[in-house]
């Protein structure tokens, strides 16, 4: 045979020669090349060259790759380096402690945040088809202007989707059990305690084929197909039947509420809904049951009652855009007339369920029961985690380089004995590796202990998960990259010592530059610390502000009872009302359809009587009775409230509506006095304005004042509010409970205090604040540890200087000031840099709130002063110690 064609690609050949074991090279190279020439003959040059490269890369296997480490010197070097590292750690116990703890805390903080972020990102991913499940959203435009985006729709939508859009494989309607239900086990002798359940949903069988909620007992296909079936979670099974779940299927529960009042047979037991599900429920009832109710069998109910929401499963090969195009105008296909006459345009869209938790585009917050943390917070936390890690590494770098002078002698001797620089670098890197490894282990331990506690604080089930790839990669990075990143700079600095200089004197060239780097790093640490500290301060101030701000209601000492569901009549309502009012400590009583903090009862369109149809604006409304304004201490600006009878021949006029001040502006009603006697057309009905209520915060302070209306209702059992005038709430409560059970037997008493309830709206903010506080604490602690270490080393280095100064007559105070000064200057610089950044960040955050604290100077001054004080304390601990020391001790040892 003779050489034919081209020689193999040079680069691949050289690469092979470089990495391959010399003893194997000849046969391997020969074999690959032989194949190469055959291929060249058969399939041409390029094909052969390509496969030549692939073949070479394939030989990157342990058996064929030569050892790049010179084993003879490496192994002993590594072990002697490790030995030296441990000796060094043991020798400087304080230094090692500070170094390792600082790093460990940084790592722990980073891990904890990662866990939290992972949890937030894991929402709804447990469904096996999660990438194909969408929520159908409706965006309404009023006369071409954007109105709102919501998920509620009529029950006719899902069948229409399935019929007209083949891209949608399955759809499931969900109807919440509004107002909750009283659930009681039946078929038991004696009294069985009823419970009030809120997380109840009506849905259809396709629910189980779309979602992956696991049915432990029962059949997913048939569990919801009969109208009197009920599926419960394990939690509910435990609650009503005890821990043994063997004979539960077939038993029945009586479910009483606004939609049902009958027995249901249990057909399935579900595993509890995971905490990372946006959809939360304890009990599932068949949708056909609720569709049979009067409300939904009226004409026009199919699109008119928008109490449902729809989940859709797309076909695997369909994209979101394709399906969205098809559905966008579906509403107009079915309801053209109705929509056109009111000038509304409704566009349907799809929202991936993976976006629901963090990036939902819904903007009517009333319907959403899931807790929302938005994506911004997640990014923010990731940044904080990185900052803390960087602070910890900076500590490490600072402390290591600060020790340079001491280690200089060691380096000098080693160099004099013939050590070369790579060997020294290897030594310091080994040291860095061990410190990092210990810190990672300690950090893991801290995380393991702290995570459940943190989880409890923020009310999330957090625990250390090893199997998440992100955590594994993070740990690997911390162990492998960390030491190199943090150890490289000190290693180069330390190994750069000129042996003569190092041996000759303690001071060596380049000291100044190194100190500059160290200064910059300290400044950076304190910039971050100041930022976090100012942030913490602003967050807690805003929270306190929100909790204490006058909302327009008097909420302390108001007790709210969730009204009865079973056996309610006007007589026993009146009886209860009179009984309760007769209790001496109950000042007033009110019943209403909603209460502050619970949202309005509905939102609808309204306009002034004398304006065009197209002038409609949004108005929120609910129903209250005569006692409501008094109980909540609401202020009436003009007109009469409902307790003040109004004479009019027209019944509608006699009741009228109360509107908020904001509504005057929105609907152009003029002043509070002028507005009286004017009429608003709300949802098609004309209502006379009988009074104007001062603006109030019915919802959290995130939202501004809204145009709202109060309708009159003589009695309702949704919420009872009682103003209590007593320090002894317990006794009053007992009395109320007794009367309640007397008037409404069979109803569990559920109550809460209004101020607690209202402030529960800030749970998310509080969660944010507690996470923020914890990590600001972490960062400050780590930064101070670093400062402490640095100060202690400076003091040791300058022991002689201090001694001489003392001998020459300097006082302790002077010396302390002298040594604190340089660090205080650094902190001052850090503060100057941090303040504008903090200002921007706080300003941005406060924009989340309609009512926020003003950004004043003391928002920055207080944290800066506190931080400076902490820093000063840290430093003076060392400097004071030095200044009190006996100068003879330090000067003698020349």
């Amino acid at each position, binding site marked *: 045979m003779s050489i034919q064609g081209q020689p193999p690609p040079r680069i691949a050949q050289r690469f092979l020669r470089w990495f391959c074991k010399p003893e*194997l090279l000849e046969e391997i190279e020969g*074999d690959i*090349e032989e194949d190469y020439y055959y291929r060249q003959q058969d399939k041409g040059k390029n094909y052969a060259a390509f496969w030549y490269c692939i*073949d070479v890369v*394939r030989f990157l296997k342990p058996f064929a790759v030569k050892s790049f480490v010179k084993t003879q010197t490496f192994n002993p070097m590594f072990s002697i380096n490790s030995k030296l590292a441990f000796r060094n750690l043991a020798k400087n116990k304080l230094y090692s402690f500070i170094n390792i703890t600082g790093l460990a805390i940084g790592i722990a903080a980073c891990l904890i945040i990662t866990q939290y972020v992972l949890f937030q990102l894991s929402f709804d991913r447990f469904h096996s088809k999660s990438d194909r499940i969408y929520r159908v959203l409706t965006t309404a435009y009023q006369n071409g202007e954007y109105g709102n985006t919501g998920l509620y729709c009529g029950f006719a939508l899902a069948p229409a989707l399935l019929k007209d859009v083949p891209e949608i494989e399955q759809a499931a309607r969900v109807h919440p059990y509004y107002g909750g239900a009283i659930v009681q086990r039946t078929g038991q002798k004696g009294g069985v305690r009823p419970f009030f359940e809120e997380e109840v949903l009506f849905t259809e069988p396709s629910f189980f084929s779309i979602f992956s909620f696991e049915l432990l007992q029962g059949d997913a296909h048939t569990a919801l197909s009969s109208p009197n079936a009920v599926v419960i979670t394990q939690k509910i099974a435990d609650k009503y039947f005890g821990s043994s779940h063997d004979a539960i299927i077939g038993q029945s529960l009586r479910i009483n509420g606004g939609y049902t009042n009958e027995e249901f047979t249990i057909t399935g037991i579900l595993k509890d809904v995971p905490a990372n599900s946006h959809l939360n429920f304890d009990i599932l009832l068949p949708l056909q049951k609720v569709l049979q109710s009067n409300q939904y069998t009226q004409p026009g109910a199919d699109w008119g009652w928008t109490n449902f929401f729809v989940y859709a499963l797309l076909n695997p090969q369909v994209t979101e855009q394709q399906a969205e195009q098809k559905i966008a105008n579906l509403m107009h296909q079915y309801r053209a007339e109705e929509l056109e006459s009111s000038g509304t345009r409704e566009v349907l869209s799809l929202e991936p369920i993976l976006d629901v938790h963090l990036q939902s585009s819904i903007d009517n917050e009333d319907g959403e029961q899931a807790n929302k943390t938005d994506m911004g917070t997640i990014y923010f936390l990731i940044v904080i985690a990185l900052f803390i890690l960087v602070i910890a590494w900076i500590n490490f770098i600072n402390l290591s380089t600060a020790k340079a002078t001491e280690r200089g002698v060691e380096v000098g001797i080693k160099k004099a004995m013939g050590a070369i620089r790579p060997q020294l670098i290897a030594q310091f890197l080994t040291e860095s590796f061990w410190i990092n490894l210990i810190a990672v282990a300690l950090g893991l331990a801290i995380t393991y202990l702290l995570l459940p506690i943190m989880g409890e604080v923020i009310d999330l089930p957090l625990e250390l998960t090893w199997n998440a790839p992100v955590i594994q990669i993070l740990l690997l990075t911390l162990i492998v990259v960390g030491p190199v990143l943090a150890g490289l700079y000190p290693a180069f600095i330390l190994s750069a010592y000129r042996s003569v200089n190092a041996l000759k004197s303690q001071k060596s060239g380049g000291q100044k530059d190194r100190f500059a780097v160290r200064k910059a790093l300290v400044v950076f640490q304190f910039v971050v610390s100041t930022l976090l500290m100012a942030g913490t301060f602003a967050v807690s101030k805003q929270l306190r502000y929100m909790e204490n701000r006058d909302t327009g209601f008097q909420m302390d000492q108001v007790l709210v009872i969730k009204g009865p569901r079973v056996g309610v009549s006007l007589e026993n309502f009146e009886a209860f009302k009179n009984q309760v009012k007769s209790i001496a400590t109950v000042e007033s009583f009110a019943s209403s359809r909603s209460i502050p903090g619970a949202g309005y009862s509905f939102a609808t369109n309204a306009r002034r009587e004398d304006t065009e149809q197209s002038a409609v604006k949004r108005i929120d409304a609910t129903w209250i009775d005569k006692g409501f304004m008094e109980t909540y201490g609401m202020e009436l600006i003009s007109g009469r409230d409902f307790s003040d009878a109004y004479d009019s021949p027209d019944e509608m006029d006699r009741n009228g509506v109360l509107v908020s001040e904001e509504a005057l502006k929105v609907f152009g009603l003029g002043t509070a006095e002028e507005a009286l006697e004017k009429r608003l057309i709300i949802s098609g009905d004309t209502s006379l304005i009988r009074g104007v209520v001062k603006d109030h915060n019915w919802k959290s302070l995130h939202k501004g004042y809204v145009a709202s209306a109060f309708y009159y209702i003589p009695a309702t059992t949704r919420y009872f509010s009682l103003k209590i005038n007593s320090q002894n709430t317990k006794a009053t409560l007992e009395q109320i409970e007794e009367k309640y059970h007397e008037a409404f037997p069979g109803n569990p008493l559920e109550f809460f205090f209004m101020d607690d309830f209202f402030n529960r709206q800030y749970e998310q903010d509080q969660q944010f604040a507690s996470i923020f506080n914890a990590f600001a604490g972490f960062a400050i602690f780590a930064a101070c540890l670093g400062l402490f270490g640095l100060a202690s080393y400076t003091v040791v280095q300058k022991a002689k200087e201090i001694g001489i100064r003392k001998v020459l007559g300097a006082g302790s105070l002077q010396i302390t000031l002298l040594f604190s000064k340089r660090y205080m200057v650094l902190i001052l610089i850090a503060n100057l840099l941090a303040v504008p950044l903090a200002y921007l960040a706080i300003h941005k955050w406060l924009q989340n709130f309609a009512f926020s604290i003003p950004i004043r100077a003391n928002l920055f001054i207080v944290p800066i002063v506190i931080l400076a004080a902490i820093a000063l304390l840290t430093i003076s601990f060392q400097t004071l110690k030095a200044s009190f020391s006996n100068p003879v001790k330090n000067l003698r040892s020349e």
Partner: protein
Amino acid sequence: MKGTNLGEFQELVLLTIGVLYPEAYGVSIKDEIRKKTGRKVTLSTVHGALNRLEKKGLVSSEFGEATSIRGGKRKRYFTITSSGVKALEETREQREELWNAIPQQALQVKLTT
């Protein structure tokens, strides 16, 4: 050591070396296995197996002639050593014992359901 136990692929390589005797070297072994089993084996897997086999002492090798098609590199010919033969025999005996131990009924599985 795990003794002379052979991995499935190693057994295949070892057998192929026997088949190709005395012309067994990397490329020919690879081609033969591809031809006989239809598996997409690569040179590197074959070399890996050869390396293991040689370490276990089941094959021995020597350099042969250099050819121009190999860019002047010598081939390395592999032959089975006596312990290689023993290992093959043992494997075969184990298989046969197992085969014989299977009750007749077990092999009469109906493939249709």
